[in-house]
């Protein structure tokens, strides 16, 4: 259910390009990094719960 909520929300990584990982620390803001980290943690937590619930084969 939480996955569905994530999937139906606006993609929090919109505006992020794969090449951005080579970008220097001076071209993105702390806020931007924090936002991405929060969402990534959320995904990891939901995945952890899904394993415990038996939804992951």
């Amino acid at each position: 259910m939480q996955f569905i909520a994530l999937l139906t929300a606006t993609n929090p990584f919109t505006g992020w390009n794969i090449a951005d990982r080579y970008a220097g620390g001076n071209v993105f803001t702390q806020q931007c990094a924090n936002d991405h980290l929060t969402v990534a943690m959320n995904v990891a937590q939901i995945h952890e719960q899904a394993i415990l619930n038996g939804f992951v084969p």
Partner: protein
Amino acid sequence: MTVRFDEAWAGAQTVGRGLAEFGWPTVVVRDMIGRVSLVLDDRHQELADGSAEEIAARLGESAGRFASPAAVLRASEMFAPDGVFEDRSVVWSDGARLFGRLERGVVGGEWTQVADAPPARRVSLYGFKGGVGRSTASFMLARHLAEQGRCVLVVDLDLESPGVGPLLEDQDRYPPFGIVDHLVEAAVRNDDGLELVGRSTRIRGSGNGEVWLAPSGGLPRAGYDYLAKLNRAYSSLPLDRGSGTSFAQRLSDAVAATEEQVTHLSRSPDVVLLDSRAGLHDIAAVAITQLADLNLLFAADNRQTWSGYSMLFTQWRDAGIATVMRDRLKAVAALVPADAAGYLQSFRDHAQSCFADFLYDDATAGDGDAYNPPPNDVDAPHYPIPIHFVGELVGLDSDARESWHRSELVTAAYRDFLGATTSLICGGTDV
């Protein structure tokens, strides 16, 4: 040796309790297909190298094929350990919260989620087995309360087999929408403006009295697909990012909406009767543990009924809510045969035994505070209110015989029930 479902759960708990005894808070989790994991909190006391593997091996021996692929999870290595340790569904074995059990990904979890103080005006009518006259009793009670000038709302929560709705009102006069409509419309925040209640034209209370019906489905009409809604009624919903609305909350919202509509159209209901469905179903679980302040438990005196109630009471005992729940229960002896005295004594004995095994305190000598009333204690939850069997109600067609409830036999059969329940609900002595 093959380890079966029940043995796996017991074995996993033994391993978990062992860890808790050494000071590691441990929750044993059972997933949607019955596999077990141990989640142990090593944030305050480190686990020695190799211990996790050793615990996983022991769990593997104890749970066999029901051991989860993720057999042991350590809080220090998890992203969100509090998702387990702070889950409201964990049943802790004691106040120190060292050992707990958690059922995940299943229906039925609502049976142990007791509400602290449900509204006093709400009464659920429930029978473990169907066909015991529960809906008829709901009708009779609503009529009786209205005759005393009260405003009564009856909510038909037996969504799979609606019963009390057709008794209270001709289906052609139903409001346009029912409980299932609220469940599906509220899911997309579209529930404003739903007409969910109608005043019963079959019951005219004396003076101020009135009976309102919130049927499970709305007025039957072309294009109105009840089944399609029912099939979507029980799910929990993802509404906001990372959170959701449980089925219990959705049902609670639907019942509250019907109460608000009666209040708006007439006045605040004095009594709300929830005609719950039979069996170990989530609808019944929510109605009994979270929505109602008084639950009338219908039973016939036979082995399968007491065996069913034992299953239900076991959950309450194991969840530590026996004391809260027993205060909200009253047994109803349904279908009492002509030899009432002998039947009711047997009922009292069996009911007392069933309640005492799971819900009453252990009565040890010298413990004056222990609650363990004897079979013939009139005020005890197990002591039944009788409804006598009436042959003419079998297979009743209430549309064809609208005056069925005024027959002498029916009036006599329900007299004790109506008097006793009215006293319980409204206080004082019923007249």
